């Protein structure tokens, strides 16, 4: 077997990934190959040297030091969100103002429509004939005439609208 393939097996052997047959292959090759024996020694020494003997500890008060940093960052994040949204909102707002101005300038205002009293009542979903119903329902002619006179007087004095308002 070629040394290149053996090197792969050799490296896998350090992680205990070899099957029994592969281990046998590896050992048989290494027995008769000086170069691979050297390689194994070197890899083993490298892996041993990588292992740390003395692990330092983090500085004391880890959480106490972390907490103010979190708070500070929280404020910054909030400001960042506000900034991002405001940066997006500014052009949208400007666009709206522009559109509104354009609408005011280019769209001519429509003619004002004066509504009659019955029109106003219809708009308010009220029967415009309500006030005249009593007049129509009156059977005596002299009473009907009197009512007509009073209505006319009220309308002249501007009290008719008060009547409507009260009805509303």
């Amino acid at each position, binding site marked *: 077997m070629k040394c290149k393939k053996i*090197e*792969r097996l050799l*490296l*896998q052997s350090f*992680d205990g*990934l070899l099957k029994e047959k592969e281990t046998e292959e590896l050992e048989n090759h290494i027995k008769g190959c000086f170069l691979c024996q050297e*390689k194994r*020694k*070197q*890899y083993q*020494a*490298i*892996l041993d*040297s*990588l*292992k*740390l003997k003395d*692990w*330092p*500890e*983090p*500085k004391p008060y*880890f*959480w106490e*030091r*972390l*907490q103010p*940093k*979190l708070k500070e*960052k929280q404020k910054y*994040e909030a400001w960042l969100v506000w900034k991002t949204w405001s940066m997006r909102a500014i052009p949208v707002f400007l666009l709206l103002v522009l559109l509104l101005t354009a609408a005011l300038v280019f769209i001519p205002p429509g003619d004002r429509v004066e509504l009659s009293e019955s029109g106003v009542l219809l708009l308010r979903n009220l029967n415009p004939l309500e006030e005249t119903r009593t007049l129509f329902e009156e059977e005596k002619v002299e009473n009907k005439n009197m009512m007509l006179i009073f209505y006319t007087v009220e309308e002249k004095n501007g009290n008719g609208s008060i009547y409507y308002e009260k009805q509303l």
Partner: protein
Amino acid sequence: MEEKELVRLSKEGDDEAFAALVKKYKMKVFNLAYSLTRDAEMADDLAQEAFIKAYFALPKFRFRSEFGTWLYRITVNHVRDYLRKKSRMNKMLYEGFKENILVQEDEWAKKEQAQIEKQRRKLVHQCLQVLPENYQVIITLRDIQGFSYEKISEILNISPGTVDSRIHRARKMLRKKITPFLSQKGGSHEM
């Protein structure tokens, strides 16, 4: 309290729950940062920054993996960014270190075993730090931290097959870097 519960509370903004998670993982996160940087001061800073990143990334944590694995991933990625920035400086240090070692060859032979061992470790770590950052990370996770292939594949978000081939290439490259120092006859740093 269970870890899942602590994570859930932390997601809702409970600082005490997050403090408990920090307490549980600070050593592991610090050790991971330290094994990648070999600088305790820097490892402390990087560990703190990794926790800050994790805190603000918590809303995105969906419990698809263990919290620890997710935290290691954040730490590894954060330290990777640092290593990328630092890689140029490491190459310069390595060149200086290489020259220094060759000059001191004879002196080394006289040194005591403990010191030789110490120098060898230093050499191996110096060589490790000039490897591409992908290889540094995988060797650190496997050969220093001792994580299983499955765990590494989860942390780095790569397949176990990729973990296997990357470890293979990384170890080969590390040996290649160290070879110039190994060939010195009778040198005490001979392996």
